[in-house]
């Protein structure tokens, strides 16, 4: 940590908003991108990123100078994302379970199948959308690993300190997540036509 950063940190700890903003400025874009890849929605990601930095501002007093500020920030960001995803999951499950009380007794809520039909996929699925969708369909921990390693390019050691797990665990998680992602994409390709494959070839994926 540079002298300047130490100075800013001191001020930020006393509640100086401007100093805090200067201190975390260079991390904002990356945090936003992590959040965006994890949540998948631009506006929600923006909102959540702000939440992350407010949380960081609140708890900056507990940050120890020996630690790496970046790692600390990314750890908070990933935790906020995972929490949010879990929250949404619970909400979704509850909404599925919810019983609607109608005039003629109780009946279970009918859920419309929102997954696209093969026709639709044919029409407008680009490789980018297909990959993003595949990433979003990963379990949140695997998604996080892909986001951190492959999208944000963190090293194994960095990921290890962000998610607070030994490097060995990180290694196996990365491999498992990638295999899983590959499976999902292959399935998509098998299901949905040659056009998709051609499209893939054009854009570089076999």
């Amino acid at each position, binding site marked *: 940590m540079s002298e300047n950063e130490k100075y800013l940190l001191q001020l930020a700890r006393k509640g100086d908003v401007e100093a805090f*903003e200067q201190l975390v400025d260079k991390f904002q874009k990356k945090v936003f991108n992590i959040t965006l890849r994890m949540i998948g929605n631009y506006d929600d990601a923006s909102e959540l990123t702000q939440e992350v930095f407010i949380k960081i501002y609140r708890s900056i007093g507990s940050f120890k100078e020996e630690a790496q500020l970046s790692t600390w920030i990314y750890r908070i960001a990933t935790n906020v994302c995972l929490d949010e995803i879990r929250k949404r999951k619970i909400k979704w499950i509850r909404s599925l379970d919810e019983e609607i009380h109608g005039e003629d007794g109780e009946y279970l809520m009918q859920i419309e199948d929102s997954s696209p039909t093969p026709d639709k996929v044919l029409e407008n699925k680009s490789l980018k959308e297909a990959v993003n969708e595949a990433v979003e369909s990963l379990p949140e921990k695997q998604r996080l690993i892909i986001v951190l390693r492959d999208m944000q390019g963190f090293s194994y050691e960095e990921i290890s300190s962000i998610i607070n797990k030994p490097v060995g665990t990180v290694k196996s998680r990365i*491999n498992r997540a990638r295999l899983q992602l590959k499976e999902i994409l292959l399935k998509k390709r098998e299901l949905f036509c040659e056009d998709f494959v051609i499209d893939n070839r054009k854009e570089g994926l076999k």
Partner: protein
Amino acid sequence: MKKCQDFKEMISEYVDDELKGDSLHEFEEHINKCSECRKDLEDFKTLIAYFRNEPAEDLPIDFKDSLHKKLLAESDSNTGSSQRVKFIRKYMPVCAVAASLIMVFVFWINFKDVFRMGSSMEKTDSSLVYQLEKDSATAGDSDGAMNYSMERNESDLKYGKSYKNTTEGIEIEGSDKVEKFSYDKEKTKKNSGQSVQINKSAKSVQNTIDNKKTTSEQSPSTKDIDRKATKIKLSNAIAKTASVVISDVGTNRVDDIRNIALSYGAVEKFADAALIVTTSDNANVPVSENIEVTSQKTAIQQPILSGADEPVANDSNSSVKSKEVSDSTQLSFNIPNDRYSKFIEKIKERFGAANIILSTPVDVDNTEALNSLDSQIDILKTQLNKVGEARDISNHESIKTQIEELEKQRNEIISNTNYTTVTIKIVK
């Protein structure tokens, strides 16, 4: 020798340049031989290349402004609270003095009340007349009563409130709203041997008050036993009771009944919670409605008795308890009024209508008991004020417990109004 699966697990490390030394060598050797692993490796590379080439998104345009505002708001709320803490620390002694002054003031006000309140207590020469006064409007209000269960110094504000309640009662004294009724010695004697204790407690209340009291006003009308019949009708103090006798139901059906009752939202009444639970005398009485009513009436005397009894002997309930424990085939439930008929249907269905003798639910008017409890609570409260004034801490605590005990009974009576108390007796 490593298997294909082992090498598959190393693909990521290889792609990420994390594989070193022997492992790297082994891996490369395997990849050259195994086409399946080679294919996986290629897929991984493509996938990773794809992600790497994805450009990072820029922050939304309004992101920094919006965050700045939120941070400022956060900082304001933070410094605000810390300033408050500083202020309190700095002026702590001043605050303490102010608080104690307020407490003294409140005590003084309450003492004034005690003085005036006492004028409603009389003593007749041979029989002790317990004159009770209660404003019908405040009878159902548990607010004032609740306040006293709080720590004295905890809330001056609430204290002020209870003060208000008592003054209200005094202001309308003598007006039409106020009903007077009394129990004299003879009447209480009828209800088991507890009358002596009642008198004792009433005496102790009166003695303390008489010490400070000068006014003594005889009211012969209060001696009149007939006036015991309550004139205050509080719709919310009516509890329904009913009894069910089930005959010839074979072996242990207690659990069956219990399960059915619980499924209808019943609360089982155990002996120690018994205030209106019928005594074993009542249980032997068959279904004749008249007898039922009378027996219920004796039953509802219990809250009055045990209530009045409480200040002197806290274990008065134990006598009631033992009676019921001995009768093991009798169950008692509080069932929500609106589910009572369904419950009975279910019981009939389960045990056969022919095996069941049923009494019509009877309204039991607990208003009197409620009022009696209210008056006792009021008296104890004035006592509490006095004791508080005299800083007699040990007495203060015991009176407080007594009040709490009475309030518990009072709350039970009120909560019972939503339930039908069913006594189920199983006869072989």
